[in-house]
């Protein structure tokens, strides 16, 4: 690996909150040497059109993700638990719960 590639600023993932009460959503990433610069860069790159009232930056390497090959074993078991959803149950006519 060349010197310049090793010295590249690390990558940070940016999560924007669009308005009060809304969840933070992934917007993209920026390179920055440290936390403060990551905040500034994310602000300058991803909020130029009022896209956020708050955001998070997280070092990309600190994100832990599920692996695609685990998808079946992690998520399929939830498929047959239809009783977790309210429309599984019937209520007598005219009753509102």
């Amino acid at each position, binding site marked *: 690996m060349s010197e310049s*590639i090793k010295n590249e600023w690390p990558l940070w993932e940016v999560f924007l909150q669009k308005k009060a009460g809304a969840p933070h959503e992934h917007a993209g990433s920026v390179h920055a040497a*440290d936390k403060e610069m990551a905040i500034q860069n994310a602000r300058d790159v991803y909020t130029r059109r009022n896209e956020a009232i708050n955001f998070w930056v997280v070092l990309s390497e600190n994100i832990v993700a599920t692996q695609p090959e685990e998808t079946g074993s992690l998520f399929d078991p939830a498929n047959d638990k239809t009783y977790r959803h309210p429309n599984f149950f019937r209520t007598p006519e005219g009753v509102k719960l």
Partner: protein
Amino acid sequence: MEDQKKIDEFNARIASGDVIEPKDWMPENYRKQLTRMMSQHAHSEIVGMLPEGNWITRAPSLKRKAVLLAKVQDEAGHGLYIYSGAETLGTSRREMTDQLLSGKAKYSSIFNYPTLTWADMGAVGWLVDGAAIVNQTMLAKCSYGPYARAMIRVCKEENFHNKQGYEIMAVLAKGTPEQKAMAQDALNRWWWPSLMMLGPSDKDSPNSGDLMKWKIKLQSNDELRQRFIDRTVPAAEAIGLTIPDEKLKYNPETRHYEFGEINWDEFFSVIKGQGPCNQERLQARIDADMNGKWVRDAASAFASKRNKEVAA
């Protein structure tokens, strides 16, 4: 040799319209072609800042100055979004940048033409961004998730670019005789390169087959070019400018415009480095990178000093 079963499964996912995400298994060639295409796209955005950046300090009103600066800034943002998307494929921005600066990676040949007058700001926004939008609208539905999401963001922002360019042209076209001549001259110079920008004709486009098979591209270069022409010709007529193509005519049966022969020799020679501004554009990027090195190094050095202090 890659596992044929995995390749078949991958192809089936693509065929069913699935979106591929960074950690999903993908054929090496899919990764390679995507990286090539996305990095070229990102480089084009970055080099594309230069022809317009050339006029920021000479914009003829404060409004135009702000709009042009915001637009050129957006190009940097678009390049950044696309580099970010490409980085998920395992190549760092630094590596991609090195490929651009060493001349190994290509960028859109259109940015190797000079911007000679203020009207070029109109022509570039209207035509070059117009052609880009046609291409990017397609890419927003491509099979690779990070690319598609970057394109959605880019398309939202790009419409403003296109409109501001057309507005510049419209104002010039109804201005003084000198201004109108300036607008027509810019259209004359930018029209053909804009058509070329959508890529070589399908029969001469070596990578199109794979890219379409994998639904990275959903329409061929010729289809995109036709769409661009169909929407641009009426816009030119509306402001009284003439498209510089004697063979251009509307075919009511196909509902498309027929147009003259594109000079593909010019296209291929500009790609190979024989365009009016190839050297200047690349040199400007090399200079920016070299002049910025001490700044990037300083921030890295500062960060590692502070990290050590925290650890100690």
